C-alpha cells in the first residue's frame, strides 16, 4: 500500500513549493470576484440569490479543466526525465503505486483548491448578508469535482505515457482543444455522415450522448438541472458516468504504457 506514501509526498511537495497555496489563492480570488459581481447584481435587482451558480459556471468550464490538466501533465514525465523516478523506484514502490499515488495526491491538491474557491465565493455572499443556495452550490461543487477528476486523469494518463515534457505539453494542449472546443462539432458531423452526407432532417437521439463523451460537454449537461433548466435525466446520469469513466480509463491506459516501457 505504498501509493499512500507517494500521494502524501505529492501533497507535501505542493505545500513545500507553495504550488498548493498559489492554486488555492487563484481559485479563491476568481470565485470571490464572481461572488462580488453576483452580490451587486442581486442588490440592483438584476438577479436572484439562486443565480450564484450561474456566476460560478464559467470558472467551472475553464479554470477547472485548465488547472486539472496543468496540475498533472508533468507529474510523472518530469520525474521520469530528471531521474527522480529512478530514485523512487529504487525504494519498494511498484509502478502502479507511482501512477495511482500521484493521481490521488494531485487530485487532493485540486480538490483543496476548488473547495477554497467555492468557500471564498460563498463567504463573500454570506458576509454581505445575502442568501446562499446551498443545495445548488453543493451540486455545483460535486459536478466540478467530477470534471476536475476527468481532466486530471487525462493529464495523468498522458504523463505516464509520453517520455518527454514537450510531448506532454503538446498532448495536454491538444486534449484541451479537442475536448473543450472541437468536440462540439463532432456529433453534428457524425449525424451528417450518418444521413449519407446530407443535412439530417431530424437530430438523431444519440448526438447528445456522443457530445457528452467529452468531459466538458458532460459537465455542461450536469450543470443544466443545477441551473434550473429543463434536463434529460438519462443524459445527466450518462454525463456523470462519463466523467467517472474518464477518471478510471485514462490513468489505466497510461499505467499500461508506463509499466511496459523502460525507464
Amino acid at each position: 500500500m505504498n501509493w499512500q506514501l507517494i500521494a502524501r509526498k505529492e501533497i507535501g511537495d505542493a505545500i513545500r513549493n507553495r504550488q498548493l497555496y498559489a492554486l488555492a489563492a487563484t481559485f479563491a480570488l476568481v470565485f470571490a470576484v464572481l461572488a462580488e459581481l453576483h452580490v451587486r447584481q442581486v442588490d440592483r435587482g438584476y438577479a436572484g440569490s439562486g443565480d450564484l451558480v450561474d456566476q460560478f459556471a464559467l470558472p467551472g468550464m475553464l479554470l477547472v479543466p485548465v488547472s486539472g490538466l496543468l496540475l498533472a501533465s508533468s507529474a510523472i514525465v518530469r520525474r521520469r526525465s530528471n531521474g527522480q523516478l529512478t530514485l523512487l523506484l529504487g525504494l519498494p514502490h511498484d509502478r502502479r503505486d507511482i501512477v495511482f499515488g500521484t493521481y490521488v495526491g494531485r487530485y487532493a491538491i485540486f480538490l483543496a483548491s476548488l473547495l477554497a474557491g467555492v468557500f471564498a465565493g460563498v463567504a463573500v455572499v454570506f458576509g454581505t448578508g445575502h442568501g446562499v443556495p446551498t443545495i445548488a452550490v453543493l451540486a455545483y461543487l460535486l459536478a466540478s469535482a467530477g470534471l476536475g477528476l476527468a481532466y486530471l486523469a487525462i493529464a495523468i494518463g498522458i504523463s505516464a505515457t509520453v517520455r518527454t515534457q514537450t510531448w506532454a505539453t503538446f498532448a495536454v494542449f491538444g486534449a484541451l482543444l479537442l475536448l473543450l472546443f472541437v468536440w462540439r462539432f463532432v456529433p453534428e458531423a457524425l449525424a451528417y455522415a450518418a444521413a449519407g452526407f446530407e443535412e439530417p432532417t431530424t437530430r438523431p437521439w444519440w448526438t447528445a450522448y456522443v457530445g457528452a463523451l467529452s468531459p466538458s460537454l458532460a459537465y455542461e449537461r450536469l450543470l443544466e438541472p443545477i441551473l434550473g433548466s429543463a434536463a434529460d435525466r438519462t443524459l445527466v446520469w450518462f454525463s456523470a458516468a462519463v466523467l467517472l469513466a474518464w477518471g478510471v480509463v485514462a490513468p489505466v491506459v497510461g499505467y499500461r504504457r508506463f509499466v511496459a516501457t523502460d525507464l
Partner: protein
Amino acid sequence: MPAIALRNVTKRFGDVHALRGIDLTVESGEVFGFLGPNGAGKSTTIDILLHYTHPSSGSVDVLGHDVTEAPVAVRERVGILPEGFAPFETMTGRQHLAYAIESADADDEPEALLERVGLADAADRSAAAYSTGMTQRLALAMALVGSPDVLILDEPSTGLDPHGVRRMRKIVRAERDRGATVFFSSHILAQVEAVADRVAILRAGDLVAVDTIDGLRETVDAGSELIVDLTGEPAAVAPVVASLDGVSTVDERDDALVVGCTADAKLRVLDEIRAAGATIRDFSTGETSLEELFVSYTEGAT
C-alpha cells in the same frame, strides 16, 4: 541460493545489441565488481536487475525472486545506488532518509545513516543544492536503509573525492562483514581491485571474464615475459630453462633468450642460466599489469 542470477539475458535497443546473452551468478555474501568500459552494458544490466528496464530475453533472479514477476519483493531487500538519478527538489537530506525509511518500513535513524556517509552537516539543507558527490552520498545512505541483503551500486564513486571514495570502500567492507552481498559497477579497475572478491569484465555486451582478483592476477603472471641478454650462445641454455617449473615458452632472439613464465619463476630462470655456465649481460621484464589485462580484454570495444 545465489544473491543474483542472470540467465542468458539479452537487451536490444532497436537494432543495437546492448547485452548479448549474459550468464552470471553472484553468490550470497560476496563483493562482486562489474567492470567494463563506458557503454559496455553495465548500467543496462543493473537497470534490468532493478526492473527499470525490461530484458529482451532471458531471466533475472534476485534473492530467488524473478525481477519481472516481483519487482517490489526485490526492491524490499535490495539497496540501490542508481546512476542518473536526481534528489527530490523540495526535500532536505533528512527528509529523503525519512521517506526511504518509511517506504521500507524500517526503523533506522536518519541521523545515523547521514553520519555514516558523511552528510550529517548538510542534513537540513535542501537536497536540490547538494553537489554531485553529496547527492551520491545521500543515495548511498538511502540504499543502506533497512540493512538490505543485497546492495547494488552503479558507478558508486562518481563525483566523490578521494576521501569519499575511501569512505565508500569502508562502507562496502562493513556491509560485506554484516553479511550483505555487494554488486557494484565501475570502469576503473583500481576501485574494483581494492574491494571486490570476484569480478566480471563486460565488453560490448558480452562477458569476457568472470574470475577472482587472484585468478586474474595469475592470468597476468602467466603472460609475463623475461628477456635475458647473454654473452654466449642462447641455444646452449634454452633446453635447461624450458624444463623449469612455471616456464611456458622459450624463444631465442639474436643473443637473447625470451622466456614466458610466471612472476615467481623469474628468479629461478636467472639462477638456472648462471648455473648452466652462461654469462648474463642484462635482463628486463615485460610486466603486464592488471590494467593492461583489462585493456586487452576490452580493446576494440565500442
